[in-house]
């Protein structure tokens, strides 16, 4: 199940799509010549540092910044009451009836709502001076009781508008749960709690803002995953025409959702830049700030009640899901991002007619929760799979059989889920078969029994079946009726006068290699070599539009737009050639940069010759043919493409220490048609490993006063090469209904590990795992 195409293989007849071409990004990245925001240097640039609240909840009585203002190298000090800053607040909007709109200040005003919230900012000659000055700011805080648990009564609400801290609540309902539950053979009730952790990309957040001295123009270099959205939001927030705002996301050192948010620090930088026109202001976040104040995720509680028939059929599911959304409704996605995803996809790839699920997003005095790779589903899959495992146990069934009994099959698709989403994949059984094969499930139970008898360290197997909804079009766009609806991206394909191709694509990349995959798509769509295509991304003045990187959408949507634009340009080339050579257009084809008459070996013209005519030799242009060779197209898949996925692992547990070793790990996903095998493999592998990190190590812990007690990478543990096993990753390729037949693969891998590892430990030891992460201490306690 490994990739058979060798790196650097030249595309064969079929073209670039489907092959592992050399990544266009790598040349600069392996030589130390990447262009990350943190590397950017501009003449006259100044550095920014933020003063952050040491309290989880406190009234801000007074800020005295006078000493900081006169400190060495300081050019400016800003607080929430500075006129430039106070004028703007972030209000994430949703039209959901239960949604309580609240405001996130750019710098805290009147009170602080989480430890790490930015209270003041200093602009100075270098970062050392800025941090020195930060220490001179004197803030008088009046501490308030903090709430850090979303399912505890708040003493003092986080926002006055929401006395119970509930910012949003919604119930999903289908069928008749009470009646079905009453008739069920087995009713299981479980409480499952998942651990707060975060995307934590290796490059922290960074931004450089420059407000032109004379022209009313703002340029913002940012590691954002959503440059066009950021431009739109910034223009509105700072009151500039959108055309006067330029957002540039150059090389970005990982994002994973964390950088799909417009942060108050981003807005602060831009507002301070307006106050200091002509001076580029740079902020590079350090890791302590990142752990404190970049978005967190996955701090959820699931109260599950599931009814099963005697044969293992899932009949009804009732759930109550509480998501800790932190101190603010994350901008612009709102506090609904996790709860609504959890409720919308909790039932996963299983047939179910009767479903009732109430989800709520509850504010607490912790860093805001935001999108993190897999959004809510690593937690919801854990809840669902745990319930299935325990039902199997109660019913005396095998864990695999109960899944087979309930999985949506190819015969069921298109399957309408109880939340009305349409699953059109259905290949779960096939993925499961392959995974079982890969982990050697056949011999596993015998070995498990043998070890038990021999008194050796026990082994266990865990499973996760999941459906990842990728490439969401306008009809499926996730989200709580926000002020915008995602669905489409744009792409411009331009053939230059020399016949080479420049692509201005609306996609963004934080490591996913989009320069490469978009070039592959366009090379084939136009009919040129991969090496003749250059892709420009991440600059809002270059590409027309793209919503950005989230929801595993870019291969499907940005790729679809690139394909359509490439085809349109090819059409223009063929039309030009047809007119110039007086051949019927339908008889022509463009391949490897040459136009041929179909069936004739020798070319009529090279693309370079035709491009020259289109731009430089107007005397040869056919009547009525518009000069230039360029096309811009949008693509919106309307619905989404579900990607079926199954993971399983075999673990060995040391009863004495609680430590666990992962012996085998397999994952098979329906990736649709693969654009670049190596990149797809890398996406899946990276996602699984993030999932393993979340399941076993990563935990953001607050004490009762609202202090983050895991504020460095020494306390917040991320997996390293020493802990991570070799992964057996395979896929099936069922083309999806979009121009390229692709399905998103960015997030699916994160969905499995919580469930897989909890299930495996439970299976090995015959215990229940109800809380994550599964640390050696948790395992050891379970054994006692």
């Amino acid at each position, binding site marked *: 199940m490994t990739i058979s195409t060798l790196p650097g293989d030249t595309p064969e007849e079929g073209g670039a799509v489907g092959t592992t071409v050399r990544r266009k990004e790598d040349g600069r990245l392996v030589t130390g010549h990447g262009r990350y925001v943190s590397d950017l240097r501009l003449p006259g640039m100044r550095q920014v540092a933020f003063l952050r609240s040491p309290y989880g909840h406190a009234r801000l009585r007074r800020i005295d910044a006078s000493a900081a203002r006169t400190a060495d190298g300081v050019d400016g000090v800003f607080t929430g009451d500075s006129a430039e800053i106070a004028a703007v607040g972030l209000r994430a909007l949703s039209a959901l009836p239960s949604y309580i709109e609240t405001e996130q200040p750019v710098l805290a005003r009147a009170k602080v709502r989480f430890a790490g919230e930015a209270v003041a900012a200093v602009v100075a000659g270098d970062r050392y001076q800025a941090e020195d000055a930060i220490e001179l700011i004197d803030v008088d805080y009046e501490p308030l009781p903090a709430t850090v648990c979303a399912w505890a009564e708040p003493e003092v609400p986080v926002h006055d508008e929401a006395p119970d801290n509930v910012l949003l609540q919604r119930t999903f309902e289908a069928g008749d749960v009470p009646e079905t539950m009453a008739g069920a053979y087995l009713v299981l009730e479980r409480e499952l709690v998942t651990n707060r952790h975060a995307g934590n990309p290796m490059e922290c957040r960074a931004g450089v803002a420059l407000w032109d001295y004379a022209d009313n123009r703002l340029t913002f270099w940012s590691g954002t995953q959503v440059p066009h959205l950021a431009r739109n939001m910034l223009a509105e927030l700072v009151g500039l025409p959108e055309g006067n705002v330029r957002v540039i996301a150059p090389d970005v*050192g*990982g994002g994973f959702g964390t950088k799909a948010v417009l942060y108050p620090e981003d807005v602060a930088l831009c507002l301070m830049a307006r106050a200091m026109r002509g001076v580029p202001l740079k902020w590079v976040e350090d890791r302590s700030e990142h752990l404190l104040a970049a978005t967190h995720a996955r701090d959820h509680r699931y109260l599950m009640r599931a009814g099963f028939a005697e044969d293992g059929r899932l009949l009804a599911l009732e759930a109550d899901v509480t998501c800790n959304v932190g101190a603010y409704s994350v901008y612009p996605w709102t506090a609904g991002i996790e709860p609504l995803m959890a409720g919308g996809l909790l039932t996963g790839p299983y047939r179910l007619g009767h479903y009732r699920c109430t989800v709520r997003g509850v504010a607490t005095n912790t860093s805001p929760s935001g999108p993190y790779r897999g959004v809510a589903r690593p937690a919801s899959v854990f809840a669902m799979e745990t319930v299935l495992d325990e039902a199997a146990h109660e019913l005396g069934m095998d864990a695999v059989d109960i899944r087979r009994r309930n999985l949506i099959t190819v015969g069921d698709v298109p399957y309408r889920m109880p939340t009305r989403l349409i699953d059109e994949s259905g290949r779960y059984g096939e993925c499961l078969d392959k995974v079982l094969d890969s982990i050697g499930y056949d011999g596993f139970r015998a070995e498990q029994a043998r070890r038990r008898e021999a008194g050796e360290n026990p082994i266990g197997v865990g499973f996760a079946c999941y459906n990842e909804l990728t490439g969401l079009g306008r009809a499926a766009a996730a989200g709580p009726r926000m002020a915008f609806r995602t669905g489409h991206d744009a792409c411009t394909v331009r053939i230059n006068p020399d016949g080479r191709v420049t692509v201005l694509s609306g996609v963004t990349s934080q490591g996913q290699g989009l320069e490469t995959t978009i070039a592959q798509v366009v090379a084939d769509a136009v009919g040129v070599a991969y090496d003749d295509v250059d892709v420009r991304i991440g600059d809002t003045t270059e590409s027309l539009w793209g919503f950005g990187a989230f929801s595993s959408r870019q291969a499907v949507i940005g790729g679809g737009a690139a394909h359509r634009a490439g085809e349109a340009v090819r059409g223009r080339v063929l039309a030009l050639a047809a007119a110039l050579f007086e051949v019927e257009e339908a008889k022509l084809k463009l391949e490897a940069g040459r136009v041929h008459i179909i069936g004739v070996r020798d070319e009529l013209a090279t693309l370079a010759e035709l491009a020259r005519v289109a731009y430089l030799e107007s005397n040869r242009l056919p009547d009525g043919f518009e000069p230039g060779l360029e096309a811009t197209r949008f693509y919106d898949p309307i619905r989404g493409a579900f990607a079926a996925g199954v993971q399983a692992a075999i673990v060995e547990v040391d009863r004495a220490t609680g430590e666990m070793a992962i012996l085998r790990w397999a994952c098979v996903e329906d990736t649709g048609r693969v654009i670049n095998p190596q990149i797809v493999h890398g996406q899946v592998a990276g996602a699984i490993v993030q999932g393993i990190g979340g399941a076993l190590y990563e935990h953001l812990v607050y004490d009762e006063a609202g202090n983050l007690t895991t504020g460095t990478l020494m306390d917040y543990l991320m997996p390293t*090469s020493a802990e991570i096993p070799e992964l057996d990753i395979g896929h099936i390729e069922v083309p999806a209904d979009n121009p390229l037949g692709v399905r998103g693969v960015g997030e699916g891998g994160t969905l499995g590990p919580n469930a897989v590892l909890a299930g495996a430990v439970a299976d090995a030891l015959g215990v229940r795992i109800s809380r994550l992460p599964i640390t050696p201490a948790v395992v050891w306690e379970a054994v006692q």
Partner: protein
Amino acid sequence: MKVGFTVNGEAVSMEVEPRTTLADALREGLGLTGTHLGCEQGVCGACTILLDGRPIRACLMFAVQASGCSVTTVEGMAAEDGTLHPLQRAFCDQHGLQCGFCTPGMLMSALHLLHRETSPTRRRIREELSGNICRCTGYASIVDAVQAAAEEMAAGMDDAAPTEVTGGTT
């Protein structure tokens, strides 16, 4: 204060504050931004460079401590003519990087390993690189790359003619 050291074979001397870290001196003072900062807490390994041939965390060291030393950064790995080091090439071939942020540190740690051991096992490579966090790749492809580079280097350079990597585009 003035501090002098060699960076990638070239003697440099610069004015720094006593508290300036070596990482900041390289990045801000010399414009060698290939050395990345992922934590400034000595944990992530993104800032790993070689100091007199030994890997160190540039975020944990003051520039003045490097006085008189020889510093190797990722910018010094490729040959003068731009030919990539076998490790750099293997990282490209094996997809040992995604965002590339951890890559300079990984390359430095791997280089140090291959200076000492010509054919490390996968387990050895995993052990040696465990001081470098990568959030993107899941590590196996990095291990593949180091293994491939080790094999190539051990087999002798001659029959493994370097190839050009397609350059960046934006």
